[in-house]
């Protein structure tokens, strides 16, 4: 059974269609990144899956249950990393985590608090008041609160905002550990495409109210046929050329100049290039073409 099964999800506010038919699945232990421009419906989608928002139409199953009818036992299987607010400012880190862990006890075995704090790197701040934490520390606490019940499915909304590079690396390790050792399914939204590429097994691009791409970062860049960048030197001079047929171009290059070519580099389009091409396609009204193109390549 899929952990997440979303079919033709639709959401309409008044006369505005925010989601016009979102379909995707996720299985156990998979890490999914949900990308998309602001206003594409990422937050709406996640809030519907979390059971915080009623959908207009479509079929949604989260951990085998319709989130509109999920009970507290169902909720115990979800981990939600919310944004940082000023809540629980008077609580101390250990106090808050230990307290929140008690809610899960009737349903599952929560993390031992000291182990959890060590995992997210908050041990040194265990007795600090939450209001005194720095932005990055506060974010670690948000993550700890999200996973304290050892969830089967974890929602991460822009998890690494405010992290320094080291904290980001630690966080990425944590996500990998959760997915690999705890079999946690993770759905994350981010604007950091590099992060999406590093963390996610699969990337979903949401634009214009639906999923316009679904696949690994690698598959996406192949399928978009975005131009690769070819760089080389000849006679001490540096050349750059963008080509959608990089292999053919390089073959001709060698045929023409042979051993004069040095320092050859071929760089496939990054996820960022692919993403920009995809989203631009949708915004210019070429969504249908883009989706069709994608489906052809995916086959």
């Amino acid at each position, binding site marked *: 059974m899929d952990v997440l099964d979303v079919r033709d999800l639709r959401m309409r506010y008044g006369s505005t269609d925010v989601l016009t038919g979102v379909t995707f699945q996720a299985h156990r232990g998979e890490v999914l990144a949900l990308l998309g421009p602001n206003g594409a419906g990422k*937050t709406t989608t996640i*809030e519907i899956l979390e059971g915080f928002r009623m959908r207009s139409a479509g079929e949604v199953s989260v951990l085998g249950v319709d989130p509109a009818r999920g009970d*507290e036992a169902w909720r115990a299987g979800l981990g939600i990393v*919310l944004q940082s607010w000023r809540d629980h400012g008077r609580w101390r880190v250990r106090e808050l985590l230990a*307290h929140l862990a008690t809610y899960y006890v009737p349903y599952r075995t929560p993390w031992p608090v000291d182990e959890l704090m060590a995992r997210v790197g908050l041990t040194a701040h265990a007795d600090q008041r939450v209001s005194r934490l720095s932005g990055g520390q506060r974010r670690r606490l948000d993550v700890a609160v999200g996973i304290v*019940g050892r969830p089967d499915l974890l929602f991460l909304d822009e998890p690494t905002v405010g992290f320094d590079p080291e904290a980001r690396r630690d966080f990425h390790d944590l996500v990998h550990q959760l997915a690999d050792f705890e079999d946690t399914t993770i759905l994350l939204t981010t604007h950091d495409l590099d992060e999406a590429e590093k963390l996610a097994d699969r990337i979903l691009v949401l634009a214009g109210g639906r999923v316009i791409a679904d696949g690994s970062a690698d598959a996406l860049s192949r399928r978009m046929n975005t131009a690769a960048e070819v760089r080389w030197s000849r006679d001490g001079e540096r050349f750059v050329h963008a080509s959608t047929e990089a292999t053919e171009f390089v073959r001709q290059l060698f045929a023409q100049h042979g051993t004069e070519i040095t320092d050859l580099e071929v760089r496939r389009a990054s996820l960022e290039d692919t993403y920009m091409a995809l989203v631009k396609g949708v915004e210019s009204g070429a969504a249908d073409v883009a989706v069709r193109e994608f489906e052809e390549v995916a086959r």
Partner: protein
Amino acid sequence: MNKLTAAARSGWSRGLIELRHLFTTPQDLVAFLLPNVIFMVAMAFLRAVPTGAAGLSIGTLMVTSVLGSNVCFSGLLTMTQALSTEREDGTLLRAKAVPNGMLAYLIGKVVMITGATLVGLVLVLTYALLVFDEVAVPGPAGWLKLAAVLVVGLFATMPLGAVLGSVFANPRMIGFASMPIMTLLGVSGILYPITVLPVWVQWIAQAFPMYWLGLGMRSALLPDSALAVEIGHSWRGWETFGVLGLWAVIGLALAPAVLRRMARRESGSSVAARREKAMQRIG
């Protein structure tokens, strides 16, 4: 059932932790003590100012009545304030994201407010017994009455506070919400005998819990000679519990639906949107 017990236990410990925070955070402690201290100083000055009743000073009337109005303030205003601010700062959404979190949150608030009310009551009561000769240590019946008024008073005010806190999305609106309560304080016979007011004002005051809370506390602590300044020269025990009970019924009938509706609407984007609005007001 086991799950509800667990939620109740989480809520209980939540309430105790918040109570501890209240008494260990300097600014919270000051906010808690200051109104009581101001009242106590004022009462001390009014100790010798006579009322219409023989041997009853304004100070004595106040010190006993304030025990009642304090229940109203902490049950109604603290609950309203807590729900309204903690909805904005995301506490409620976090409660919603954990199993049985909302239930435990509410239980926690009830425990915290009840605890804080009790501490305030003990403080003012001790002061009243030590400083005011007319206030005598009550007998068993007096204690029972005091406890009953406290319990029914909390039931009459906390659910109502929860309803108001759910309706006012913006914590800065609480200032407006507290104005009618301050007005009530002025007309409910807490600061001076209600019988000096025009009869129509007396009727308005008698529609709300504050007057009856004050009356209930006076009836538990003052001698019958103080009845000279009361409406109908009676402690009106049945009416006291009748009106407070009615408010409790109204509050308890409305609160679950209103709270559920409020909770249903909470989501990450609604908290973020409220926060953005708040930021704009500041900036």
